[in-house]
């Protein structure tokens, strides 16, 4: 905690407007609410924290109480993201989650009582042996909790995880991508019907009253939009990432080293805190590639080619003309010409990698 405060202080810039704060990665809900309050105070002291800032905290359903949620709300947290994952005990067990669906119901109810009007639920689909029906019932349970926001993630079996070892040894069926595709397609329809708008490959937000067709919905996570729109953000804490001042950087992962580095507290030019270890100076190519591959994740607003031009001084067509035409031909991309926007088609949303990689230079 102390090191974290030091780190925030080290980048103190009172005129820098802060629109969003996000407590995430690991289980921030294990922090006592007083600590969260303290961090927010430090932030308010060091930066210009806007009065209507979105302040999110990620929480595991089993780790919150009505009291803790009240305290968090009082400290200024106004958005809560709950890792529900599934409504089935068996699946939660497989994912090594400690909580039950009952915990999720409680957490949602307490959050409402504590005054949270922005709630997100994270769900995972495409688990080994998960049937379409199973998944459908998971989503239905989530909908009954009436969150403002939903994140649906396909399980990805990453190299080196226990899942990948089990699948490799034949102890578990490999996830079926076709089935996952069917789940996602069904979900997209169901959620639209329920009044949610998809605005990113894995994210939906309540869209009542409906927002304009080429804008992200009102309840979209403003913080995450920041990432996808390639706007700057600062990362604080061990393992945190940041993107600002032409750098992408990451802090040391090991907490011990993190603390030591902040004790030694060597001043560095903004935005690099003493804990930053992986520091990458962005090239123009990096910026253009990432602008496209991140921006195209936004399934509703897509990327604005005008913004591209303003930002890089060149037309996207000049650089990516061939790829854009081919991807449009293949039915993965669409141009909304009058709006000067480029966006994934419905099919393209499921085949995003095929699109994104074409924008790497």
């Amino acid at each position, binding site marked *: 905690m102390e090191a974290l405060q030091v780190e925030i202080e080290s980048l103190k810039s009172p005129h820098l407007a802060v629109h969003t704060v996000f407590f995430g*990665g690991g289980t921030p809900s294990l922090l006592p609410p007083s600590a969260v309050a303290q961090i927010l105070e430090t932030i308010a002291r060091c930066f210009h924290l806007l009065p209507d800032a979105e302040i999110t905290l990620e929480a595991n359903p089993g780790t919150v109480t009505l009291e803790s949620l009240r305290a968090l709300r009082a400290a200024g947290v106004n958005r809560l993201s709950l890792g529900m994952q599934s409504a089935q005990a068996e699946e939660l067990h497989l994912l090594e989650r400690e909580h039950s669906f009952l915990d999720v119901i409680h957490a949602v109810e307490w959050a409402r009582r504590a005054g949270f009007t922005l709630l997100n639920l994270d769900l995972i689909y495409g688990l080994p042996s998960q049937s379409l029906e199973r998944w459908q019932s998971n989503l239905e349970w989530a909908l009954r909790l009436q969150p403002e926001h939903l994140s649906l*993630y*396909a399980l*990805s079996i990453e190299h080196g995880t226990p899942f990948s070892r089990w699948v490799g040894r034949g102890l578990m069926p490999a996830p079926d*991508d*076709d089935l*996952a*595709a*069917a789940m*996602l397609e069904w979900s997209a329809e169901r959620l639209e019907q329920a009044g949610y708008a998809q605005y990113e*490959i*894995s994210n939906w937000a309540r869209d009542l009253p409906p927002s304009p067709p080429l804008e992200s919905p009102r309840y979209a996570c403003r913080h*995450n939009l*920041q*990432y*996808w729109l390639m706007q700057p*953000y600062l*990362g604080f804490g061990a*393992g*945190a*990432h*940041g*993107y600002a001042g032409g750098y*992408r950087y*990451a802090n040391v992962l090991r907490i011990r080293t993190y603390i030591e580095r902040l004790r030694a507290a060597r001043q560095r030019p903004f935005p690099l805190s003493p804990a930053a270890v992986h520091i*990458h100076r962005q090239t123009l190519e990096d910026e253009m*590639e*990432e602008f496209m*591959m*991140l921006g195209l*994740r936004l399934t509703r607003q897509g990327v604005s080619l005008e913004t591209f031009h303003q930002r890089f001084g060149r037309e996207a067509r000049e650089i990516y003309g061939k790829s854009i035409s081919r991807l449009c031909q*293949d*039915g*993965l991309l669409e141009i909304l010409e009058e709006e000067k926007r480029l966006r994934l088609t419905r099919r393209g*949303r*499921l*085949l*995003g*990698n*095929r699109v*994104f*990689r074409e924008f*790497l230079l």
Partner: protein
Amino acid sequence: MSRHIRNFCIIAHVDHGKSTLADRLLQMTGTISEREMVEQVLDSMELEREKGVTIKASAVRMEYTASDGQRYELNLIDTPGHVDFGYEVSRALAACEGAILVVDATQGIEAQTLANLYQAIEADLEIIPVINKIDLPSARPDEVAEDISSLLGTPKEQILRISAKEGTNVEAVLEAIVQRIPPPRGDPEAPLRALIFDSHYDAYKGVVAYVRVKEGRILPGDTLRMMSTQAEWKPVEIGIFAPDMRPVAQLEAGEVGYIATGLKTVRDCRVGDTITSAARPAAEPLPGYRHPKPMVFAGIYPVDAEDYPDLRDALEKLQLNDASLVFEPETSQALGFGFRAGFLGLFHMEIVQERLEREYNLDVLFTAPSVEYEVLLRDGRTLRVDSPAELPDEAQIVEIREPWMLIEIITPTEFYGAIMDLVTKRRGIFKGQEYPSPHRVQLKFEIPLSEILVDFFDELKSRTRGYASLDYQFLEYRPDELQKLEILVNGEPVDALAAIVHRKDAYHKGQALISKLKDLIPRQLFDVAIQAAAGGRIISRANVKALRKDVLAKCYGGDVTRKKKLLEKQKRGKRRLKMVGNVEIPQEAFMAVLRLEE
């Protein structure tokens, strides 16, 4: 002077220890210091080191003071033992007066022991048999000595028993070289005649010709002449291998060395040609070599069409190191511009592929290897077809003839039955048996080359627990019921996937091939139909369903760099795919026809 020269090569079956013996000889003569010594030091090519196999013969000069107190110049040529490279051996033999025949004490006489021995006898060389690896517990030196003795007539006691690895008795090998191998004859005052027995390409010195000077001498300032083309040039440098290239003031009759020619292409400096001097040319060239006949043919295509000129350059350079590689331009409807290349065998082909990829950093695609067919047409013409795609329409064909081989398998007698079974299953015909030595039987068969191209050798090894060995030579062309098996992708025949098969195999192979291709062709953005056709009928079909989902679920602030790397990797993977029409097909698909049994 030449009284004190000995030119010899080391020959053996694969892995019997030629290169290891060469190591010891280099060490004992002080040609290589302890510090420079590595195992099989003459196997300097990266691939040779990795595979532990000699691919290319290499020459080296050593100085040795024998027990008679005299100093001798020993020119050694280490040769490869793999059956595909018999041609390298034959060229080395022409540069020598003697050969050390190495026989592994645990394996005994094997197929290339015999094949290489017969070549050496034919070249009239003095042969020094040596039994190697006597340090191994499973060594049977007495038995092997008996076998060699009955083969060569050398008294058993005279056969040296050594361990090349440990250095045991290697001194005796050096003495035998000096005492038993005759010094080269050849008049240093006669007009120059030097035989090119190998070459390599050097970026600065051009083609470096490895020569054995038979008569006359070469001085650095001489203008030289190729006897076949009459082309004249001045050498950039002359020298010897010690084992690195070292310039010398002259090379004279009896010596082995190199001439850096400064020439840029293989056509100007052919292996087997004779070099003479422009000032006093010889009347007759030396007898050259029979150029090896390529056994298998395959298309080589750049994965990226833009690399075509680089591929051509690379093949030309490779040919300078590998005189047995032949190629000519070819165009495929499916694959675009490429080359049709001929190889001595599949191992040779594999080596060429790896060298193109590593030494020339090219992404290349090889089509399935094929033998060369003779096709008799209704109009009386005979076509030679080494690419299945070029087989004319069935209606025009009277008959298709394929190459048959005479194969010799040497094996301990207990595996007789297993071998019979293997060979007859592949259309082979038993021709007879011999007992080259008391403990071995040599079986002779006739068999179509296409049947032994793939897997045959591996099968043979596995059925005989590694004891059998194989040698083969071309016999003749014979007609059989052969037909084209075609593969259609989305309705279009893909020439590079066609194969020529026996009529009775067509159905089975067509089905097996389609199920293989179904697994190998990655899912695309649309459905891909694949079909096999033979004799005008579709015999098998399958569908590669369109890809539905390929997207990273999460990409937040901390993920960008990692996710980008992942996409970059995907993108690189895509480069290894070849666009055929609008379908992406991986390299392995073009080889699928070879491995239908698995």
